[in-house]
């Protein structure tokens, strides 16, 4: 496989992409898992499908449409979430379905042959372009900057939001910002593993990392490394078994999660 990597630029792009998404995915995944916002991130991923459809209908880059839809949804859901948990849960579910439905509608309205949507649903890291890589790099930069600049505030907010409010930290702004950053990350992940499989990369590495890490920093770092391992392992599986890359990456991440839990069980029983 090594020789193939050196030979084919699409494989090089795929590896770069894996490296870039690991950074933002590790950080955002950790926030999502610790804040118990898995449902919300699934919602945002599916809403972005509406934006992809709109992109095709208007003849603009579908990923731009996905960004717009995802960010708008993230802001909408965080405003609703201030009112009540239940309301935001229901809203997420409705946004989820409506976003997918809009995507299907927009694509049906697009003149000419319908585009192949499978790569957005199940992802294709092997077809990422230089533009995709650039977008991933920008998102990494934003996420890393915010996390390093506000690390201590983020840590206290995620641990005890009420105490953060007592310290007069602007928790509403922080929650909104986190949702927007999550939306950006989710869209770039959609490109790599697809809307349906995005949940695997957002949850499994962070969940495994939280078994290992003793601080927010170490959990984020470990989640990033595990994301990278999942991507590399998935790519290798996909290459050697000739199976779709998105599915292989998602299954690899799920396998790491299962493995970690089996080890944890065994250690608590016999350790």
């Amino acid at each position, binding site marked *: 496989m090594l020789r193939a990597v050196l030979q084919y630029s699409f494989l090089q792009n795929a590896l770069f992409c894996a490296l870039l998404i690991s950074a933002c995915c590790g950080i955002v995944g950790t926030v999502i898992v610790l804040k118990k916002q898995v449902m919300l991130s699934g919602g945002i991923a599916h809403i972005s499908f509406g934006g992809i459809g709109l992109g095709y209908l208007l003849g603009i880059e579908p990923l731009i449409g996905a960004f717009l839809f995802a960010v708008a949804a993230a802001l909408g859901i965080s405003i609703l979430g201030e009112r009540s948990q239940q309301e935001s849960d229901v809203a997420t579910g409705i946004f989820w379905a409506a976003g997918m439905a809009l995507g299907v509608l927009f694509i049906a309205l697009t003149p000419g042959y319908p585009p192949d949507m499978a790569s957005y649903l199940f992802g294709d890291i092997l077809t990422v372009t230089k533009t995709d890589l650039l977008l991933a790099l920008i998102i990494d930069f934003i996420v890393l900057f915010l996390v390093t600049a*506000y690390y*201590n505030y983020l840590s206290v907010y995620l641990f*005890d*939001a*009420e*105490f953060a409010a007592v*310290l007069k930290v602007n928790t509403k702004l922080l929650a909104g910002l986190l949702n927007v950053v999550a939306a950006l990350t989710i869209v770039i992940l959609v490109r790599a593993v697809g809307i349906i499989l995005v949940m695997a990369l957002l949850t499994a590495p962070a969940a495994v990392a939280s078994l290992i890490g003793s601080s927010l920093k170490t959990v984020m770092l470990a989640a990033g490394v595990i994301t990278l391992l999942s991507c590399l392992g998935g790519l290798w599986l996909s290459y050697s078994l000739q199976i779709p890359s998105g599915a292989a990456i998602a299954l690899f991440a799920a396998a790491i999660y299962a493995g970690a839990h089996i080890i944890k069980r065994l250690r608590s029983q016999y350790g």
Partner: protein
Amino acid sequence: MTQALELKNVTVKYNRTCALSAVNLSAAENDFLAVIGPNGGGKSTLLKTILGIVTPVQGEIKIFGKNNSQYKEPIGYVPQFSSFRRAFPITVEDVVLSGRLKGGGRPFRRYEKNDYRISGDIMDKLQITQLRRKPVVRLSGGQLQKVLLARALAAEPRLLLLDEPTASLDSEAKNRIYEILKQINQHTTIILVTHDLAAISSYIKNIACLNKKLYYHGEPEISEDIIHKTFGCPVDLIAHGVPHRVLRSHGGDATC
């Protein structure tokens, strides 16, 4: 003399439900005030209103003579156990240090020498220094309560609010917390809320009885009648013979 805390006619509503009704309450500097009342009687709401997390529909709150929205000094706050995630990757030292943070969100705010020194002193005082590197998940109830107290004290507040600080602690741990609070009380005004009458120690200087309305405020000598009004039912007034009993004994055994 300016009062440490002054509430005038404070009313709080959640949607249409009334949580606090025209509450007047004050605490002098270095007071140790226990607010008692049943669950759902608005005790936590009272603290959150003082902290500015909950906005009253009516009334005025003054902290050391300043409106609570204008009061920029830190206020110490020890929340209930249930209000946060225990299974969070954070060490004891980082929790205590986080009390040193201030709002405003200055980017790249790192803990400085001063922050470490003050948190270190407080951890020494509360005898939790040896737990410094432990993740909070692995603490006992009593240890966690001390960590939360240390976090609140790290801001060096002049006013300390505690929400059920001794719930879920055994009596030995309770006594230790009260011993610490007594020391802190020498230069800090303390307001503590609890539904557990047995949790009240002799260190408390004043008592307020709250069940949406304020039923009593003053010396810790209250009658069965006031307890009855506050709790809506007769309550066994503190286990008899317990050393920290502060309520006057009464004839006959009352049960709910």
